């Protein structure tokens, strides 16, 4: 919406005709943009929606001591989640396409019931300095959900105590609607554990788990997931006792494999469902619901295994006033589960607002390696007390295996795909065309077939002897794309990697200072080395349709003065000729290829939080019977240092650590809601 348009019309709504909705008197007069878009306030004003979530959670457990050190443990947990949604929308008229002739009451009830049961036999015993734990167990879980919902039109009144489906006399079949669905999921696991330590100095733990899930077909249902870890608290050893400044030291390492369950329900099953997308009418009087497949089945789907290896060291000095940890992590997601995009020839297209029909598959193997350092130090000097905590994480991501050549995902308006993932490279790198400046009016030209063509650019000779230029239609002010493979044509084969959305380093540090009654705390964080695809540029530099534009867009290449007729018949120069610029002219057909213009450095350094506190001295507070009183003033997101020109560099909400749909289209900024700056003030009072 144009920010200069007020929220409501002052007098009447243009185009509103009282006969359209008999008996309706406009209460709100929402404005519309020049292009007919209604102010989004309409939703806020008209929709009255309540959601009630009721949880009932119960746990029950028994431990039976059978012999000394031998326990039988039984745990039973259950959860009932009962959700009620009630939404009422009254009659309104905001525009010819945005209105409601009959008021509508929507009701939805969802009940979910889940339980889990564990039976564990555990033996825990110490033999001198040897401590042993042996454990074997079984676990089962089940989750069931049912839903019923519907609507009714033409309510008796909009009073809240009248909003029940019975309170309508509109009995026509189109004025009421009921639907409902159900879902179920179960898992089962057997597991065992062996823990051993000697004097708490040498530590060993071995685990084995066998997991089964209803989401997988009967032949692929079970997966085995072992793990072990070892540790050595060397500060307990006599040979280090001499180093007095060393207060703690431990080396640890381990390997573990865990399983990740499928996301969709029964992905191995070829499902047929009666959904709205399969309706048709044969006589224009009544429509029939057809039945069709709703998800491509993958009979071979099985567990994704997450393999974690880590080695680390913890060191504490000077009674742990200085503490250092260093870790190396390797995490490999093998058989990663993901909805796989499949060609439309398999019938995967669904019209608007409908779920995906893509099969869920074990798509590949992705590795994440990282070093992580944390350092904390405390110091007291007279009345000044200070501490600092620092953490640094390096990120190295690589796709080890992929069941297909490459996966290209992401879309910003006309840029598609935006990211590419293939074996041997990090996930989701930006993929597009390089550019080499603009075509200029000084470039040599030739007239071909009655049209002026710029000729200092790649070309090839067609079979009929004609010369074809890579950008035959280019005009001065257009971007020159690089013909990387030198075939004289501009094709998909000329695309290359334009950047990596993953940072090389993620860091954060906190500083705490105390002086007399004052305390100060500041938390900074940031990333280094990641790129962001500034998708907002696709809209702000794309002069089409009805959107708003970037201020800098006025600095674009303009070949001739742009002149507009004024209402009085005069002429107004809207934009002067401007050829000394690197911003391309306004021809979307030319710059709708993903190119470095959209890719920006996403590194940032941000003050996330700053708090200043003051403890009111007790000799004041005790007079009013207050033991302790601390007043504080804080600010969040005070500043960020970044070269990124979009709203906010905090784009990478999708992390490669949590594989899932988003991982293949990282770092694409579609105009995220920027982090807000916040000031706050508070008091802690103890009586």
């Amino acid at each position, binding site marked *: 919406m144009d920010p200069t348009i007020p929220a409501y019309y002052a007098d009447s709504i243009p185009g509103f005709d009282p006969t359209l909705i008999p008996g309706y008197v406009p209460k709100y007069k929402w404005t519309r943009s020049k292009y007919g878009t209604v102010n989004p306030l309409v939703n806020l004003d008209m929709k009255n929606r309540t959601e009630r979530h009721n949880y009932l959670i119960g746990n029950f457990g028994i431990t039976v001591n059978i012999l000394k050190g031998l326990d039988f443990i039984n745990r039973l947990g259950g959860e009932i989640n009962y959700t009620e949604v009630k939404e009422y929308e009254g009659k309104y008229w905001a525009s010819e396409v945005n209105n409601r002739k009959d008021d509508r009451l929507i009701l939805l009830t969802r009940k979910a019931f889940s339980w889990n049961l564990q039976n564990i036999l555990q033996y825990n015993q110490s033999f001198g300095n040897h401590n042993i734990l042996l454990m074997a167990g079984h676990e089962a879980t089940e989750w069931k959900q049912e839903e019923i919902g519907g609507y009714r039109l033409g309510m008796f009144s909009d009073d809240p105590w009248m909003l029940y489906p019975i309170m309508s006399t509109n009995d026509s079949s189109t004025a009421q609607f009921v639907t409902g669905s159900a879902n179920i999921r179960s898992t089962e696991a057997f597991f065992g554990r062996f823990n051993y330590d000697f004097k708490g100095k040498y530590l060993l733990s071995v685990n084995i788990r066998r997991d*089964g899930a209803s989401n997988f077909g009967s032949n692929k249902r079970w997966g085995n997931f072992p793990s072990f870890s070892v540790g050595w608290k060397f500060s307990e050893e006599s040979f280090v006792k001499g180093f007095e400044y060393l207060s703690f030291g431990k080396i640890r390492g381990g390997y573990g494999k865990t399983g990740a369950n499928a996301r969709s329900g029964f992905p191995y099953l070829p*499902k047929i469902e009666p959904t709205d997308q399969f309706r048709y009418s044969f006589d224009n009087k009544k*429509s029939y619901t057809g039945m069709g497949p709703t998800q491509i089945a993958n009979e071979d789907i099985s567990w994704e295994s997450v393999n974690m290896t880590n080695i680390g060291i913890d060191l504490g000095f000077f009674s742990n006033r200085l503490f250092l940890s260093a870790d190396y992590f390797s995490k490999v997601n093998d058989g990663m589960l993901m909805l796989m995009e499949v060609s439309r*020839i*398999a019938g995967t297209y669904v019209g608007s607002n409908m779920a995906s029909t893509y099969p869920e598959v074990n798509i590949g193997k992705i590795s994440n390696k990282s070093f992580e350092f944390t350092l904390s130090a405390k110091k007291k000097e007279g009345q000044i007390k200070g501490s600092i905590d620092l953490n640094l994480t390096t990120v190295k991501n690589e796709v080890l295996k992929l069941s297909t050549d490459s996966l290209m995902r992401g879309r910003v308006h006309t840029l598609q795909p935006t990211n590419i993932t293939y074996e041997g490279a990090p996930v989701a790198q930006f993929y597009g065309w390089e550019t080499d400046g603009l075509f200029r009016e000084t470039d040599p030209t030739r007239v071909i077939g009655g049209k002026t063509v710029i000729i200092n650019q790649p070309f090839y000779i067609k079979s009929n002897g004609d010369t074809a230029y890579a950008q035959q239609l280019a005009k001065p002010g257009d971007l020159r794309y690089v013909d990387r493979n030198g075939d004289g044509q501009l094709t*998909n084969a000329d695309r290359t990697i334009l950047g990596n959305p993953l940072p090389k380093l993620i860091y954060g540090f906190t500083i705490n200072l105390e002086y007399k009654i004052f305390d100060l705390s500041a938390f900074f964080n940031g990333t280094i080395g990641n790129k962001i695809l500034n998708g907002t540029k696709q809209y702000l530099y794309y002069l089409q349709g009805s959107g708003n534009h970037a201020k800098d867009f006025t600095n674009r290449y303009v070949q001739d003065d742009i002149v507009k007729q004024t209402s009085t018949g005069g002429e107004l120069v809207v934009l002067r000729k401007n050829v000394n610029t690197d911003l391309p002219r306004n021809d979307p057909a030319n710059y709708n290829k993903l190119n470095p213009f959209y890719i920006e450095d996403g590194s940032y350094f941000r003050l996330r939080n700053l708090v200043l506190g003051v403890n009111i001295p007790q000799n004041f507070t005790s007079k009013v019977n207050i033991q302790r009183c601390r007043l504080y003033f804080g600010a969040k997101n005070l500043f960020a240092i970044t070269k990124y020109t979009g709203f906010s560099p905090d784009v990478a909400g999708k992390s490669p650590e949590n594989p899932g749909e988003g991982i293949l289209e990282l770092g694409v900024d579609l105009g995220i809601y920027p982090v807000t700056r916040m000031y706050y003030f508070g008091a802690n009072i103890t009586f």
Partner: protein
Amino acid sequence: MKYNIFKYLAIFITGIFATNCSEEFLSPEPPAVINAGSYFTKIEHADQAITACYSQFNNVAAWDRNLIMGFGDIASDDAEAGGDFVNEVPEFENFNRLISNKTDIMFEETYGTLWKAISLCNLAITRLPNIEKNLTDQSQIRLLRRRIAEAKFLRAINYFYLTIVFGEVPLVDHVLGSDEYQQPRANLKDIYNLIETDLKDAIDVLPERGESGWELGRATKGSAQALLARMCLYESSYAHYYNGQDARFSRLTIRWADALTYAEAVISSGKYELVGIDGRKYNTWRGPQCDGFRYIFTSDGDFCPEGVFEITCLTEPGLGYNVSRGNALAKWTSARYILKNGVDGPSDFWGLGLPTQSLLAEFETGDPRLKTTMAYEGSNDSIEIRGGARYPISFSHSITKTYQRKWECGEADWMSKASDWPTAPMNIRLIRYSDVYLIAAEAALMLNQNDKAREYINKVRDRARSCGTTGAPAPIDRAVTIDDIRHERRVEFAGEGQRMFDIVRWNIAYDLLNGPNADGYEKTYVRGTHEFQPLPEREVALSGGKLQQYPGW
């Protein structure tokens, strides 16, 4: 004692759940979905599956907007993108300028919708025959066979539209396995062979229009014959007019005789009628004296004998866009501006797909079809807007100084038939009877049966003449030429999404489209590129290199 109670309780609870823990526990019956493996056993399942095959016509974006208004008309010399101002809808302006953007959603919507229908048909054609062994009642067996024949017709028509928009596409005649999702383009001849086989099967089984048991909105024998005639006409045209110059058409053969045979089969069935040829007037929302040609383009003309195959139309509350359909063309193409008391104001229609001046000039003086087709500056036309008021059309925002009128829809229709989604109630007449005559006329001409060609083209002109009072268009009383056919098709089907496909098959698009649009934009038509639209870029990316854009896209 207390201790023992808990002990037994624990064992008891464990016992209850332990009985559950088995393969059975991990194989719950999936609630509220059907396993495709156990489906397709009853005649009802055949009905449900075929309803789904038809359902994809509900995608108004793919059919009304893209196939008919966009690729069929705006891309051609018949229409400009239009709207409030030039480039209001950039995707259409791109078709109009021959710079289609292969990532625009229009391509994916269209390609995806047609393929979705084909995949539903593939499933039905593969699985429905298995139902027959469960049936004993002969009438049910006949019904089942008819349903399968409908699926074949639907597979054919969806493939046909794929080939005229995108050229060669993959050929898929079964439910794809997981290692078959990447397919190259198939040769057009192979796709035409599948279309032909399907349509011949459908012709054998489907009932004639009006036969007992026939339902209004379903495919008939006539639908299949007409589509096969159209396909033979296209195949012959590509073979004849490109004459080996374009490798994509190299295996196609000239079969005017087949086109004529199938078109004449529809004509000789006697089931259809050139509505209005007898001068009859019809009562519609426009009034009691509506001429036949105008009547075809009102909701009152739904399922009239002019319709050889129609997309049905029913808007239902609660069902959204692309699920429940109205005819979206009314909203999108009707005049955008009206004069209220001499002042320009919006009509709430969108004014897209503006007819060009060259289309206007194509109409013979006094041809009554012009008034039904378009309004133009000086035509003194008015339009009924929502609320029922009627205002003069204003051309202040129309770059061509014209608007389409074929799909207009009156207030009575909006109120009585359309509901939530503001699209008009009016079927899309995908194959009209006059098309069958003009296919026959063109095929006869190419077979040097000029008398026959003249008889058929004059039928269409007779009907047009009977719908007016001017005596135009006069019957042709000399040898018919291909230019007569081209002229007649252009004025008869303007706004119905046929022009671009026609001028491409006649290989005259290069001559007609090179040059300026109404806004002065200079178009460049490149042979080998602009005959067809680009494939959705996403499909190329997913194909592992097997699917290639045509050069230039």
